[in-house]
């Protein structure tokens, strides 16, 4: 691979053969052979059904799979070798490349964006290789707003279990909404679509050698779109399948979400300070998006980790939090599990104080983010308690309350932020 280029010679050769396209669907992978075959077949079916005349391509950016993932993606092609029995007007290329460096979704996205730019794709979608509940309709719902309604970014809305995505529900969504006046349910999407306009703009940003260019990049894309006042919409896709893999590492997740959001405060001060017109993000096809089936939850462990964190990290919290907030949290640590409540306003205040601490680098910034994790467990526990018997509507209402708490506490963030002057 030539210096400074993220695309290998071999991949460029394949892109030459693909030529200009109307639609590009990117699939970032890393040893996903278990599920990726089903996903790309679903993508292909969606392209054939809803965009039969469009020039399309499936691009797989792989982090170095050793389980045959790439071959499964290539087999989704429709050409002289594959798929000749399918009712397709056109050739469909499904090509794969391995990007350099350690596996990272951001690097994969970078590769996909570069390919989209070279191929002059008018609309792009990215789907997760683990989206086993992907249906052909997802492709239509993601791409139709870009192609036919001029949207720049289409984010998904899923029907999820009420206890799924706790970090998104309790931190990422409300914080994004409060800071940037844009209400998007999945600001850190794994299935989404964007226009060539936004894609090119994002590709040319100077973030690819930094942490946000490797992890959490999708969230950064959402923030860029919001800050750049691009046209954003949301599409209801359907049920998001529960992942079979163990839950993700919470510290890593916190870095990719809270860490990124805190970082964005420094990068986009003009966007979140001051009053701004809310950026609309209409949702197409949205329906009640919460499922209620029973789920195994270890509340005791959450409570224990919260109290443990409060006690063990006292000196760390002392340097991050204000006195009253710290005292309130310490008081909560002594409350038994069945009475435990970390209310929305306190949680919002805590998050904002962490944001300020991150901004001032009172301790290492990564340490600030890590320190938030045990406190988040407390908030997660509260969310679980509050919504244990809740109906769909009640869950939505509780979620709305959290968002409103973040919006209400925003002035405290502004005070603290400017107070350093």
């Amino acid at each position: 691979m030539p210096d400074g280029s993220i695309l290998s010679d071999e991949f460029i050769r394949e892109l030459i053969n693909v030529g200009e396209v109307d639609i590009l669907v990117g699939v970032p992978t890393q040893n996903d052979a278990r599920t990726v075959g089903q996903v790309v077949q679903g993508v292909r079916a969606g392209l054939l059904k809803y965009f039969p005349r469009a020039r399309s391509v499936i691009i797989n950016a792989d982090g170095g799979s050793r389980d045959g993932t790439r071959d499964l993606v290539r087999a989704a092609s429709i050409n002289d070798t594959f798929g000749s029995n399918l009712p397709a007007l056109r050739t469909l290329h499904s090509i794969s490349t391995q990007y350099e460096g350690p596996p990272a979704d951001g690097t994969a996205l970078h590769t996909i964006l570069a390919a989209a730019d070279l191929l002059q794709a008018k609309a792009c979608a990215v789907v997760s290789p683990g989206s086993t509940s992907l249906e052909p309709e997802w492709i239509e719902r993601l791409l139709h707003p870009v192609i036919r309604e001029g949207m720049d970014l289409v984010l998904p809305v899923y029907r999820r279990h009420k206890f799924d995505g706790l970090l998104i529900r309790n931190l990422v969504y409300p914080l994004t909404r409060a800071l940037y006046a844009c209400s998007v349910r999945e600001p850190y999407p794994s299935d989404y679509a964007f226009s060539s306009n936004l894609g090119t703009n994002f590709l040319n940003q100077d973030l690819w050698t930094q942490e946000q260019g490797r992890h959490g990049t999708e969230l950064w894309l959402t923030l860029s779109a919001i800050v750049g006042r691009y046209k954003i919409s949301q599409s209801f896709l359907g049920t998001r399948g529960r992942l079979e893999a163990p839950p993700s590492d919470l510290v890593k997740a916190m870095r990719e979400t809270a860490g990124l959001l805190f970082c964005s405060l420094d990068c986009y001060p003009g966007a979140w300070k001051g009053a701004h017109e809310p950026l609309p993000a209409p949702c197409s096809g949205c329906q009640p998006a919460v499922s209620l089936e029973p789920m195994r939850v270890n509340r005791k462990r959450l409570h224990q980790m919260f109290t443990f964190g409060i006690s063990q990290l006292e000196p760390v919290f002392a340097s991050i939090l204000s006195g009253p907030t710290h005292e309130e949290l310490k008081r909560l640590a002594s409350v038994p599990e069945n009475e435990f409540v970390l209310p929305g306003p306190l949680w919002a205040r805590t998050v904002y104080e962490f944001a300020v601490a991150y901004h001032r680098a009172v301790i290492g910034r990564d340490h600030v983010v890590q320190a938030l994790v045990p406190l988040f467990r407390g908030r997660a526990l509260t969310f679980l308690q509050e919504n244990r018997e809740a109906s769909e509507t009640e869950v939505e209402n509780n979620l709305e309350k959290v968002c409103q708490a973040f919006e209400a506490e925003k002035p405290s963030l502004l005070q603290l932020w400017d107070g350093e002057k």
Partner: protein
Amino acid sequence: MPSQQDSLWYKDAVIYQVHVRSFFDSSGDGNGDFRGLAQKLDYLHELGINAVWLMPFFPSPLRDDGYDISDYRSVNPLYGTLEDFRSFLDAAHKRGIRVIIEMVLNHTSDQHPWFQESRSSRSNPRREWYVWSDTDTKYKGTRIIFLDTELSNWAWDPVSKQYYWHRFFSHQPDLNWDNPALREEIWNVMKFWLDMGVDAFRLDAIPYLVEREGTNCENLPETHEVIKDLRARMDGEYPGRMLLAEANQWPADLRAYFGNGDEFHMAFHFPLMPRMFMGVKLEDRKPITEILKQTPEIPDNCQWCLFLRNHDELTLEMVTDLERDYMYDEYAKDKAMRLNLGIRRRLAPLLDNDRRRIELMNGMLMSMPGTPIIYYGDEIGMGDNINLGDRNGVRTPMQWDGGWNGGFSPADPEMLYSPIMLNPVYGYHSVNVQSQKRFEHSLLAWMRRLIKIRKSTSVFGRGSMQFLYPANHRVLAYVRKLGAETILVVNNLSSSAQAVELDLKAYKGNILVEMFGRNVFPRIGDLPYLLTMGPYQFYWFKIRRI
């Protein structure tokens, strides 16, 4: 007179399809005629074609442009006399041009004496020469071909008070091929023309000859028996003559019409034609390679007939609904262009009068395995007039020069059988033979060159075909081979420049010689052979070892 001993002459032919009526009027009555056609044989000879296919010139009420025949052994007085035809035939043969005439065996005009007799009474000897029924429910499920005008395949005859079967217009009753006397008479009709020296017959509407209950009345075994019989008789008494099938069917169904080399010599490859147009519009070779992959092998003495356009609509019967909708949306945005599951347009307007695309399509036509047919007027890029009814828009008078009636006829313009094209783009002032003869780089001059190069080798007509499948799907590439001669054909179906790498390892060490300019291209090595191509460009390379 071309040698009739070369029994495979049709494999090397380049056929020119012409309607006598549309070509040249020598008598001044507003209709083209045989004397006029004979006068233009030099033009055809210069063009380079070596066979002419005449559309029906028999006496006819002309309600289906001559395909409704009312006398099989004569010439429509509009076009001249039988003597005129004989003179034309001789003149064509003198120039090495063979003559293919129509023979409509499936039906006649309702004005034909045979039908008049048949309908006159149920006991008439010719009664059973047609297909009669008391009800219109027989042969249920048989598709209607002329969907835009016909509601049923049965028509009520008030004279004989029975229904008669017609697969086409209701004024074209189907002949009954189960009747031995009818079969014998048809053979006599064919003999009449063969004795005169006609080289071949294009048998129109051949799949529909025989009907049977419980079938779709197409491609029945009995139909094949009829053809085998006619072929056997013709081979026995008139060796070297040719039968060409008009059967709009899928390749697998068409295969049967070649039999074991004992039915038709040639058949039109209908499904390929719309896919060539599709491929150019999609900028993707997939439709073309797919249909050719589905095309079965045919006996060595048989040949496909390839064409881009003809006198009928660009048929979309043999495509999927998805493909048909695409073709309509891309090539017939104006609904008036659509007719009978097809598009009634000429070549140049279909291709937006884009000279590069016209060349590309003709290049593919001349280089794919089969015998190419050029529809009259397409060699100069004539346009169409969709405001004329039915398919008459693609049957307007030939445009010879920018003068009176485009040089077609000395008659008053109002007398012409059809209005001549007038619009500024395709009208006879802009598009005519005379002006194109003056310029080296006109479409006409280019077509002449193309045909000449095509005829310079037998590979195109008789050689095998093997697709290369370069990763760039916008490029259609194949190798034609006959004996020691190998030709590489590469077509860029895209409107933009393309780079393509071809796997020519099997020809390592050979050089490529481009056939138009005869320039040498680099030697084939181990690496994929890189070619860069302009929009809609094509190459014909001889692969030579020196």
